[in-house]
């Protein structure tokens, strides 16, 4: 099972509504994945800074945490969302802040990027979305996942999206069969993995290809031969949005497009409340074909 969603806006006028639209989509797919949920939102970028999303324990005193990370320097802009805090860190201070985070074992870096913010927790997806305040978030595109755990424990670490490089993340419906061998190869290429999860390896593979200079389109196409197993992926980059299904098309997928947005849902039900859906072009993405949209 599991449910995945994605929404890529073409019309800037609806960017303030991105989070609310994603929240509705995620809520609909609760019954496909009631164990945990996660989502990534590509919001506004701050000049010469990177956003780091950090997860702390429940009832974490983020004021004290951030004061320690500031280390007596200028205040770090921050937004707290339940168990997560998004820090906007000037590029010059990134290394120092990361080093300090690594010295605080109760904290985990969930993801980072110029624009990407990423949130995930155990629990029913609609409640998770509410706790993080997804419906108030703005942005250009976002992806999300509702998990029904079948192969590993219900933990926050096993929740999607997975991210293995700045501004890149991925949600996955399916299971991979060659992830152990590929993980070893990627470790040799300098990647570090936080979990034993198969999806994290897919994210790592794509980050590796893009680090080596491949475009998102080239990356999705080479994934078809590099990744063995069942998958429907929705991928986000700083300016791009991609969809890929395995050649057997084991997992369901529906897409819809209007001149204002492009949306992905594991089922059409997830798309029914999008504005203008009744006149949208609705289709099933073809197996083994990379679909992508890019903002310019």
């Amino acid at each position, binding site marked *: 099972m599991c449910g995945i969603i994605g929404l890529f806006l073409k019309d800037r006028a609806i960017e303030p509504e991105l989070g609310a639209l994603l929240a509705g989509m995620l809520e609909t797919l609760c019954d496909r994945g009631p164990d945990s949920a996660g989502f990534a939102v590509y919001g506004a970028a701050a000049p010469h800074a990177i956003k780091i999303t950090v997860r702390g324990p429940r009832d974490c005193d983020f004021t004290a945490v951030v004061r320690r990370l500031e280390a007596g320097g200028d205040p770090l802009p921050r937004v707290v969302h339940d168990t997560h805090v998004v820090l906007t860190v000037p590029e010059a201070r990134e290394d120092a802040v990361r080093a300090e985070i690594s010295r605080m074992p109760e904290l985990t870096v969930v993801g980072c990027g110029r624009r990407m913010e990423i949130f995930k927790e155990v629990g029913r997806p609609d409640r998770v979305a509410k706790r993080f305040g997804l419906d108030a978030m703005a942005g250009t595109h976002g992806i999300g996942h509702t998990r029904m755990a079948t192969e590993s424990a219900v933990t926050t670490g096993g929740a999607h999206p997975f991210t293995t490089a700045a501004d890149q993340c991925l949600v996955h419906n399916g299971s991979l069969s060659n992830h152990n061998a590929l993980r070893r190869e990627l470790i040799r290429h300098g990647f570090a993995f936080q979990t034993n999860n198969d999806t994290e390896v897919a994210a790592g593979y794509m980050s590796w290809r893009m680090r080596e200079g491949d475009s998102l389109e080239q990356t999705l196409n080479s994934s078809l031969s590099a990744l063995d197993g069942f998958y429907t992926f929705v991928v986000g980059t700083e300016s791009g949005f991609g969809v890929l299904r395995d050649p057997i098309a084991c997992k*369901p997928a*529906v897409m819809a497009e209007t001149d204002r947005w492009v949306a992905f849902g594991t089922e059409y039900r997830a798309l*029914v409340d999008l504005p203008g859906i009744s006149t949208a072009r*609705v289709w099933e993405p073809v197996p083994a074909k990379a679909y992508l949209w890019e903002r310019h």
Partner: protein
Amino acid sequence: MRTVDLSQTSLRELNAELHRLQRTTNETHWRIVNPRGQHAIGVGIDAPIVVEIEGHVGYYCAGMNKEATIVLNGNAGPGVAENMMSGRVHVKGDASQGAGATGCGGLLIVDGNASARCGISMKGIDIVVKGSVGHLSAFMAQAGNLVVLGDAGDALGDSIYEACLFVQGNVASLGADCVEKPLEGRHKIDLARLLEAAGLNGTVDPASFRRYGSARKLYHFHIDNLGSY
């Protein structure tokens, strides 16, 4: 005509009402609005009624249909008309995977494309797809006809027992034990009947199709294989 709004009425209530109908019912025409991609709409109907559905539906719409005519003005999710016994299901848009799977009888018409595994394990249903079908269509097909005006994806008719497959466009590849067979006069008559039933009377030439079926080597005893038994 009865109109049921699925944003007001629960799916369970609708299906229960449809199941209560007797064959002699006077409520012969139903219209269902706001399906919103829900699953199992109009499953298990056993009465000669007409049901029109306005919008896209989720999994298993019109499954196990008996005698009813179900018209879907939208796209269907996986398993539309699965295990249909008789009657007619007409999808005006596209159908997802497993359209008409295991169907025993009746006619399924898809105006658009049907994706993978169309007619998988079909057991007597007739399926007419005016667009293309995806990979592994008619997998393990046992009886009935699959007519495709567009193309067929990889492994058409894989492990087919019997059933007739007619494709007007290209076939990406044939599955195990599925072979092309000559299109003879009686096949053209069958095809003409199916095309007419699908509303294509006179607009499509039956002679423009190619026929595929079982080589009958996979499930049939062959003396050369005696040593394997």
